[in-house]
């Protein structure tokens, strides 16, 4: 499912995870889970961004 997230959705999810993590109210296990999820979202974001960058690099001089 996460593969179908847009960059923004993934970023939003990442932010949600970051927020709860930074609130520090999570149990250790939940925090670890949240970290894992945050990583997944971060990865998605990074990949999306890299893909976008690549796409641009293919056509740099195109109007």
């Amino acid at each position, binding site marked *: 499912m996460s593969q179908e997230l847009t*960059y923004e959705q993934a*970023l939003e999810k*990442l*932010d949600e995870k*970051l927020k709860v*993590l*930074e609130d*520090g109210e999570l149990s*250790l296990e939940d*925090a*670890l889970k949240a*970290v894992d999820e*945050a*990583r997944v979202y*971060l990865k998605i*974001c*990074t990949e999306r*961004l890299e893909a*976008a*960058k690549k796409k*641009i690099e293919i056509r740099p001089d195109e*109007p």
Partner: protein
Amino acid sequence: MIRPEEAPRPFTVTELANEIRRELRPLTAVLLKGEVTGIKRGAAGHFNFTIQDGLSRLDAVLFADDARKVTTLPEDGQVFVFRGRIDFFGKTGRLSFIVDQIEFDDVGKLRARLEELKRRLDLEGAFLDSRKRRLPFLPRAVALLTSPTGAVIHDLQETIWERFPNMSIVVYPVQVQGAAAPASVARALRRCNVEGLADVVVIARGGGSFEEMFAFNTEVTARAILASRLPVVTALGHTSDRTVADMVADAECRTPTEAGARVVPKKADLMLRLAERERRLSRERDRRLAREVERLQARRERLMQVMPNLVRSRSERLVRARADLARLSPVQQVARRLEALLERGRRVDAAAAARLARSRNLFASRRASDRLDRALAARFGAAVRGLEHRRSRLVALSPDSVLSRGYSITQDAASGAVVRSAADTARGRNVRIRLGSGRLGAQVEEVEP
């Protein structure tokens, strides 16, 4: 002037006619005021009429070309101020005034009619900016309504191509002067709209007098401009007065050059601006990507920061718990209890010692041994005393008591009978003699009765 080498020879008629023409040539741009009469329109579009002032008269001709240019056409009985030249036509032998311009003698009246037209158009709102069509930013082609003969086409074309080298220009030749001009302009405008070859219309002419410009002050022209779907720009030359056409046009320029600049943007500028937009676009895109990279980096950093925090606070918590546990570990309790046990041990010892001491004291207080000795002593004392007493009594009672004085008692050893007389015994018998102290055993040796 007859040149000397030609002097001797007589003129031919033609030569003289030509000579007359030449001589008359200085009479050009002559202004002539007179009443029109006998006007006739020729098949070639020219007009023949006579100008008179009551005393004199002159034949006049208005050629078709000029007729298209003049502000107004001559009418019989009307007084005009004509401009023209004198010419001599050899063919007919007639002298004619060749009209190239006609002005009303009574311009005030004409102006009054014009003002009345402006008022009406104004009332209709024809001059309002709000109804004016916007000029296209970049027309596909520019329609030019002008006289095909003037320099206008050239000027406009130069201006436009200088600004936009590959711009198309569609020229609609029209009469810009003369009585036929309004209809000509109106027709061309309609064609422009119908054909749709261009996106904007420029109506231009090279300027002129009030009369020359009169076509652009007519209602026909004004209505045609108002009715145009395509925006119309006027470029009517350097006139001080705005024409009605200028007022109803969507844009008003002085010169074709100005109009050209007005209707066609500079291609180079456009390309620069497009390039600038492209730069902005690329910049925005790059900035956006950079921002995202930054945002992601920030989040990555936050995540990286959160992770150790996750463990750190908990580690601290555990360190505290460990310290608490060490503190709460019952070492003290054990020590205290050991102390308490020692105390109890002491108490046990003390109680035991006390108990023992009490028993010993109690025991000692009995002085049992002493008392025993004393009881014994008392008992013995009594016994000894009792025996002594008895011994005394026995001594006192004993018949032996006399023996101490030296008497003795003799008894027969066998019978124990006291030998009171010698006769009581016989020789050889054994007797026992009691003395004051001790006894003797003896055998009777003698008997002396």
